[in-house]
């Protein structure tokens, strides 16, 4: 159970789902590209409620015309998006992706490639994948299921997703379409709405203290005087998450209660 703050039985994973869904509220008619379970539930929730124009994929090459449960096959296909078109779509900007981050710093630089010295890493991870093109072309948010000082670091070991400082250094071609709207973790929601575009705590999930977030963050985080709670899901949103989108509770395996 979540450790207080509410009496509605809403789990931490469900607050995270709602926070992820909110990232796509004003995205418009673009591809929502969630990576990870909670963002996938969030994108589907957004489409079923306040962002019906979103495009969603089946995780492979099809754009789905319905909103099936996680893992279920779509009954309606509305389009084709093989990898070559997906990469080309990124360059059009008609997409808002939510990627994972093995490390992220206060400027929004993200690393999924490797830990340690790149030439001979202590721990090789995925590789840069599409983080460089994503961050320079379409809004790129991040999802961190386990907020810790090992993830929220002073400096990432390899800049894959480009943050605000590195984009500015690289010049206008890099900043032109660069936008990192949000970072969502199991503890709260963060943005870069500060004068120097460094990370700010926007809201904490019910049951989480500011002290807890600061202790789990390895850099100086901007904290406003009054930190609101992440909003409550509506009854209808909870029903959609629990009965329609994720009846098997995959979200709880990513963010345990």
């Amino acid at each position, binding site marked *: 159970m979540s450790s207080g703050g509410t009496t509605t039985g809403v789990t931490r994973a469900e607050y995270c789902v709602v926070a992820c869904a909110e990232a796509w509220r004003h995205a418009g008619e673009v591809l929502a590209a969630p990576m990870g379970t909670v963002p996938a539930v969030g994108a589907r929730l957004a489409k079923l409620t306040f962002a019906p124009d979103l495009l969603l994929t089946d995780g492979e090459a099809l754009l789905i015309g319905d909103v099936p449960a996680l893992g279920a096959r779509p009954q309606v296909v509305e389009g*084709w998006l093989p990898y070559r078109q997906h990469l080309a779509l990124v360059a059009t900007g008609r997409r808002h992706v939510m990627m994972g981050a093995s490390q992220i710093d206060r400027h929004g630089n993200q690393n999924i490639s490797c830990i340690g010295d790149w030439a001979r*890493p202590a721990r090789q991870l995925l590789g840069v994948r599409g983080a*460089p093109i994503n*961050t320079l072309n379409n809004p790129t948010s991040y999802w961190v299921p386990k907020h810790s000082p090992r993830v929220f670091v002073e400096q990432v070991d390899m800049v894959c997703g480009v943050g605000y400082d*590195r984009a500015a250094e690289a010049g206008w071609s890099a900043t032109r379409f660069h936008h990192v709207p949000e970072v969502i973790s199991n503890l709260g929601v963060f943005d870069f709405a500060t004068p120097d575009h460094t990370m700010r705590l926007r809201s904490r999930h019910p049951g989480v203290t500011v002290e807890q977030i600061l202790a789990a963050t390895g850099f100086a985080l901007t904290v406003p005087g009054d930190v609101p709670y992440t909003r409550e899901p509506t009854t209808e949103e909870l029903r959609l998450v629990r009965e329609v989108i994720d009846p098997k509770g995959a979200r709880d395996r990513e963010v345990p209660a």
Partner: protein
Amino acid sequence: MTAEQVVGRLRTGMTLGIGGWGSRRKPMALVRALLRSGITDLTVVSYGGPDVGLLAAAGRIRTLVAPFATLDSVPLEPHFTAARQRGAFDLVELDEAMFMWGLTAAAQRLPFLPVRAGLGSDVMKVNPHLRTVTSPYEDAEELVAVPALRLDAALVHLNRADPQGNAQYLGPDPYFDDLFCQAAAASYVSCERIVDTADLLKEAGPQTLLVKRAFVNGVVQTPNGAHFTSCVPDHERDEAFQQAYARAARDPDAWQRFTERFLSGDEEAYQAAVKAFHAEQPS
């Protein structure tokens, strides 16, 4: 051709493109044939999956050009990660789209193509050979000049092909197999089934004819030849076997046993060992 004949056309030190994506439609029978040869010192260009893993484990890669290596349902390719951690090969780590435009530049005989991707990221730092180019038009934008990824040879696996090399994909994604073939001096297609040219359109429309014979130097029929990666609709990824591969790859003794059991014979022996593996699995 046979897989052995394809490998007979390859040489130590070549730059080799491998089609598919991650653990999807990889020309694994050709990779296994390559493992049985003495060819080494390769520059491998791949959206990496177990093709990269197997070649890395066998010490055949001198340089890897890739944006990632993954088994999809198993996020990290264990042989790739281990090889990187022991510094087994040089890595040219490119963004997924930079990779695509590099292949495209090679296919179109261009020295480079301009892309936005890469600016501001450490891809520029770990690849000091990368240059930028300034737009000659009013905008004067500075963009990354992704160099052409020219290949000495390409290996791809498709669902169907005719004997001349017209090759067809029947799944939802072509990946980049046509580009690999066009970017290569010589290309070899393995397929689930060789069919008469007149039968190519019996299963699907003309837009599924992905690879043209003018870009193909040899065709091999290798049923289940993408195993254990997916080759839908002919076969899904063999998740149970992939799990066994990944578990074995994380432990040297287990890997030794895996190699002896599955990779010490020819392709027929491999497929028979896979059948035996499944017969042992609890249903």
